[in-house]
């Protein structure tokens, strides 16, 4: 007997705010988090714009009441901050009271520390503890410790769809009774490594990113973390806690076209949406809002747009909130899951910033103003390198 998967808590930190409320306020005030890089030096500082969280690692550690002398990567610090908020939001006091798990995701892991200290371990033996913080599982391990979790914990990394896959796996475990509740999401910090990597691919914009615009120049990298608490509906109801939304559908498929580029017709994206609809058992026409992947690269927006046109006979209101936050890689699907939940709760469609000119390949115009309308179902897309395509559907009621 499958149970429904209820969302009972959300936590987030991004360049548009370090609480759910701050993020919501920025979204409805059309206040972007795109700026110049400040927390570390990169030669490209004047050529790129980023969705950077304007807190240093020391400030984050202090917000978390952690000692300043530590081996914590920024990826962990952001993750711990958002995960803790999610746990508080779900009113969890004893985290090990029920069978609780953590499924996190990251693409950079401890790279921010590794790139800083790479050549200086001999001169600075005090940096040696950082060596073990490099691998991706380290941040998950430490987040579990920080929230006091002694249970199932694992880490996914499928590039820019990572957090969607963590959410999907958590939903499978809860609906089949393998866990009573699970904290799912992702975290990624900005690093010189990713900035230079995306720079070599020539998909970084030197201006604020402009999703679905004819003249889009590429993406802005961002950093963020967000987590959701998923619970079995029975358990959430028995505890009398407020259910924020449900996960009703999910799907993952592979584009199997190219390691970094998306196919012409958006095959992977089409298939992941199709699977999500099959799982949710709703029709595409029932979707009220699409939080698109919408990275603002020429390739993504064209491929995603084509996939949307294939699956929707009439494409509903859609936007890319990456115009606010930048592309936060492994965390992107998690922060956009939080925005999807907010859309359902507030009956609100968030706009795409900076949009001016429709793309010439098709007639798809993203929402450009905030507007309030009844929202029952939200679809969120996330696509990553390696052809990895994921879709989540969030619903108000089931």
């Amino acid at each position, binding site marked *: 007997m499958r149970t429904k998967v209820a969302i009972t808590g959300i936590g987030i930190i991004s360049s548009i705010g370090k609480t759910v409320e701050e993020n919501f306020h920025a979204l409805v005030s059309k206040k972007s988090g795109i700026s110049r890089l400040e927390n570390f030096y990169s030669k490209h500082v004047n050529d790129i714009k980023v969705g950077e969280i304007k807190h240093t690692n020391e400030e984050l550690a202090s917000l978390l009441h952690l000692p300043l002398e530590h081996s914590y990567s920024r990826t962990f610090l952001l993750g711990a901050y958002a995960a803790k908020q999610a746990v508080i939001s779900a009113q969890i006091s004893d985290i090990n009271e029920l069978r609780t798990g953590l499924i996190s995701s990251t693409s950079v892991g401890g790279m921010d520390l590794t790139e800083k200290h790479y050549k200086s371990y001999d001169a600075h033996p005090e940096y040696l503890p950082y060596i*073990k913080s490099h691998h*991706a599982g380290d941040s998950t391990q430490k987040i579990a410790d920080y929230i006091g979790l002694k249970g199932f914990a694992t880490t996914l990394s499928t590039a820019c769809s990572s957090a969607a896959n963590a959410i999907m*796996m958590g939903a499978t475990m809860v609906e089949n009774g393998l866990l009573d509740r699970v904290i799912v999401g992702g975290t990624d910090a900005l690093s010189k490594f990713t900035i230079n990597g995306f720079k070599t691919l020539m998909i970084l914009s030197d201006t604020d990113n402009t999703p679905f615009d004819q003249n889009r120049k590429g993406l802005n990298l961002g950093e963020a973390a967000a987590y959701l608490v998923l619970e079995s509906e029975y358990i959430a109801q028995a505890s009398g806690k407020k259910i924020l939304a449900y996960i009703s559908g999910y799907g993952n498929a592979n584009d199997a076209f190219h390691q970094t580029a998306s196919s012409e017709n958006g095959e992977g994206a089409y298939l992941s949406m199709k699977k999500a609809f099959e799982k949710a058992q709703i029709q595409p026409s029932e979707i009220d809002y699409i939080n698109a992947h919408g990275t603002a690269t020429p390739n993504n927006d064209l491929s995603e747009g084509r996939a949307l046109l294939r699956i929707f006979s009439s494409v509903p209101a859609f936007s890319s909130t990456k115009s606010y936050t930048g592309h936060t890689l492994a965390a992107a699907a998690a922060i956009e899951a939080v925005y999807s939940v907010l859309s359902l709760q507030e009956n609100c469609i968030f706009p795409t910033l900076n949009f001016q000119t429709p793309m010439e390949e098709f007639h798809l115009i993203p929402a450009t103003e905030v507007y309030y309308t009844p929202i029952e179902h939200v679809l969120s897309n996330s696509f990553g390198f*390696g052809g990895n395509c994921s879709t989540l559907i969030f619903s108000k009621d089931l």
Partner: protein
Amino acid sequence: MKSCFINGIGSVTIQDPSYDLYTSEAQDVSYVNYAQQPSYKELIAPGMSRRMAKGIKMSIYAANQAIQEAQISDLDAILVGTSMGCIEDSEKFLQSVIENDEEYLTPTAFIQSTHNTVAGQLALHWKSNAYNFTFVNGGSSFESALFDAMMQIRFHGAKKILLGGVDEIGSYTYSLFQKIHKVKNAEDLVDFFQPQSAGVPCGEGANFFVLSDDKSEKTYAEVKSVSFINKLYKPAHLWIEDFLVENNIACVDAVILGVNADVNQHAFYEECCNYFRHTPQLYYQHIAGSYDSVSAFGLKVAAEIIKKQQIPAQCMYNQVKANRLESVLLIHQSDLIDYSLTWVTSC
């Protein structure tokens, strides 16, 4: 509940590509052990092969063996566990970012540094639009992928799954690991029975499986259950007992241990050995070397001994003889975190 059968296996290891558990003699492991690369030219175009990360090539080769053996043509899921992904390319890219001061960089190494590169390349190689996940959870990366594979079969109707574990040795990362004694240094002796030095004899490799809900004449064994935790919060024997009770395991005919010649990690395995002192015990990292996803090689050993109903002499860790090999338990951890138990049976 649907069953999860192992119907095909493929490997690239530190041993010769023709290495066989029963008929070959394994080369002794040293403090560092690089995989012996098979010929890739029948599988991968030479132009591509030159640019392709070692982890991808090893995985395509091992996956191809598993797929050929299972005689399947399409896949319902591709699942990979890797602690570090294609770490050589991560190093290469980071090195050039630092040395060239963020200039004159090319994308290949960056692209291959992405953790899910292997799973993505497997999808490209087999033109598979299927579900495609990569787990990166240190010493339980492979177990995480196995766990998800079992969920895909049981709950999402998957019938044929390509599952694997892969890790590379990156020379700079390796040198950093030597500094903190996570891996052995040249002067350290490698002793799996009475280790005297810290660090593991580092290895690398790719071990892939075809899992299916359907038993065939190729079937090796059935994976019944896998469980993993990030930290051990109780004595090892109590943790094992809990697993045996939860899974109604009345009898374990053999245990396969992840002993890794690290003096600091040995006490855990000694506790396991003591608990299973009347049970045949096996080890395998003296054949495969030690790396986070090497437990996939352990699963291969489990599958082979169940199929052959015989323990290869070179894998015996104690002197207890096996009467039968119907129920086998794998015990693994890495660096005293990421503990896992995997139960495999005959079918």
